[in-house]
């Protein structure tokens, strides 16, 4: 066994850390306050090659691995989890689905600019009536000559509101083509700007306020048959396959946020004096910090293991669920403790821990709720 990162992975960590410290961290609060999308930061992320780390160079990527990608996501999330979420969706989920299931033509057309970060991808699974029960998709696609005609609504769609979002990959029900066939769930690429595809207004959110999340509405939206993605009848399975990576990504986001909680709490506890001494001297505080440091490292090890399994083409459904569930739950605890350590100051928006606390909760929901992760784990135990 070798737990050391490769030189390449170390360098990716250093690159991202430097970028976060110099550019990202100081802007996170502003993004949260104004809700304005940080296009200049997203452009710099693209220039640094972040969106394409795990893809081969001929497809616009860096030729690195998923472990390196997730180290990048962790470090970005230490500064701003919103941008970790952006990377999760565009790289781990959408670009990966194009890379794994796309035709050569689809890869050339959609993947290359996305891996280069010139365009951003969005992923449409959730519907008003289909959350954890993602199979309950109501959106339909009907074949009409050389086109598919889409009708339905997808909600909570991250990234789609960005000016350079190029497409959303959606699941939709398709009717049986021949007698005796069953209804299927299939996957389609819907480019932004297609007639009949419109966005609802930007959601008013508790956190991730500068994430471009909108409702996607499809009304007789006609796309060419060449936008069919992957194999017939495998749309749902394809979506779940890339969501497995999305779970590793959310674990990495949670670890980044826990690390930020730990650093802020440690700093504050050393500086804050009560009863004549820094509060870190009190066991009530230092034990919280010890627990936080331990949970951060354990969660980190778990997401790294899941990413390593993925890079080595080994099964990792269970490990991705462990990583996502443990990291997100421990992250909420870490954010709560960080807030507690800061006392009344934690309630003030000028302290970052207030933001950390708001950001932690969503990580237990996205890419499969904690309950869905427990379902995945318990089913695998049987």
């Amino acid at each position, binding site marked *: 066994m070798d737990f050391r990162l490769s030189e*390449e992975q170390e*360098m990716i960590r250093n*690159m991202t850390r430097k970028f976060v410290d110099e550019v990202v961290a100081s802007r996170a609060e502003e993004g949260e306050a104004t809700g304005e999308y940080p296009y200049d930061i997203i452009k710099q992320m693209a220039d*640094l*090659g972040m969106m394409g780390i795990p893809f081969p*160079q001929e497809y616009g990527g*860096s030729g690195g691995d998923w472990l390196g990608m997730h180290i*990048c996501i962790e470090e970005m999330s230490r500064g701003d989890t919103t941008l970790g979420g952006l990377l999760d969706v565009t790289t781990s989920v959408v670009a990966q689905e194009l890379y794994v299931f796309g035709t050569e033509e689809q890869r050339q057309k959609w993947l290359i600019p996305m891996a280069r970060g010139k365009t951003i991808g969005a992923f449409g699974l959730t519907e008003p009536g289909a959350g954890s029960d993602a199979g309950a998709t109501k959106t339909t696609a009907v074949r009409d000559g050389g086109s598919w005609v889409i009708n339905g609504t997808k909600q909570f769609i991250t990234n789609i509101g960005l000016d350079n979002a190029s497409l959303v990959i959606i699941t939709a029900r398709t009717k049986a083509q021949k007698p005796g066939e069953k209804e299927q769930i299939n996957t389609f690429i819907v480019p932004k700007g297609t007639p009949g595809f419109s966005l609802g207004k930007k959601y008013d959110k508790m956190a991730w306020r500068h994430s471009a999340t909108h409702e996607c509405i499809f009304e007789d939206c006609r796309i060419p048959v060449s936008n069919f993605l992957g194999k017939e009848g495998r749309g749902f399975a394809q979506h779940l396959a890339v969501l497995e990576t999305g779970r590793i990504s959310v674990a990495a986001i949670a670890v980044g946020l826990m690390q930020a909680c730990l650093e802020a709490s440690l700093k504050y506890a050393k500086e804050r004096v009560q009863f004549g001494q820094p509060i870190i001297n009190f066991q009530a505080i230092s034990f919280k910090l010890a627990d936080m440091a331990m949970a951060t490292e354990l969660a980190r090890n778990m997401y790294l293991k899941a990413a390593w399994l993925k890079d080595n083409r080994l099964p990792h459904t269970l490990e991705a669920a462990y990583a996502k569930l443990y990291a997100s739950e421990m992250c909420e605890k870490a954010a709560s403790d960080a807030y507690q350590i800061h006392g009344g100051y934690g309630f003030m928006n000028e302290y970052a821990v207030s933001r950390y606390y708001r950001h932690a909760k969503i990580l237990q929901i996205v890419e499969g709720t904690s309950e869905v992760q427990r379902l995945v784990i318990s089913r695998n135990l049987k």
Partner: protein
Amino acid sequence: MEIIVCIKPVLDPDMPPAKFSVDSKTNRVIPPEGMPLVINPYDALAVEAALKIKEAKGGKITAVTLAGSFATEILRKAVAMGADEAININDPAFEDSDTFSTAFILAEVVKKIGKYDLVLCGRQAADWDNGVVGSVIAEYLNIPSVIRAKGIVVTNGKLRVERVVANGFEIYEMGLPAVVTLSSEMGQARIPTGWGIINAVKKKIPVWTCSDLGLDPVRVGKTAARNSLVKLYTFSPSRSCEMITGKDDKEAAGKLAEKIMDIKP
């Protein structure tokens, strides 16, 4: 443009001061555990300057270091930033070289590379802050040099350098080849990209030894050093606090002013 950039690993300037310690018996800094050395920030600016010239004029950048430990790490960093080649100058005979023998070895490296228009260095290393190597390389190569540059432009085969002075900057024009050392006024060095990092890790970095350079070991390392380190220790300033009082604020302020005027510079 063929550009050679000399870089050096130093202790991370951002490391906590508590991690810094010296071994007074051997007169050496004890490398802090878990804190890898980083590329000297001024040298990173030299790489940045080289990249800007390459972007404008085309050409090739070769990064060289005479470092011992952490040589490949910082050379890969330079390649990740965009340098085309890297050479690790490494030989036990080079150990304990002083600034003059370091410059001598680097000048020999430049000669061995052969084809060059420009040699760039940081204005000084952030550990010892001598600021000598760049100028002495120029002496050994017998070519012009400008130190503490904040900007370099190459036009019509000539070099135009802005050199930082106490209250502004001076502009120099000179022919090529030349040596220039870069100052922090130049701006910021770029962060390596994902693509750059992956390429850097794949890059084969040759090692050149004392015999590869055809050097007599007597002319390098400790035997050739012109200066010697007598004592290395950490300075611990003593502090005392005196409260100035008076019957009112005015009197206290007056006493304070007298105290300040009495302080000998």
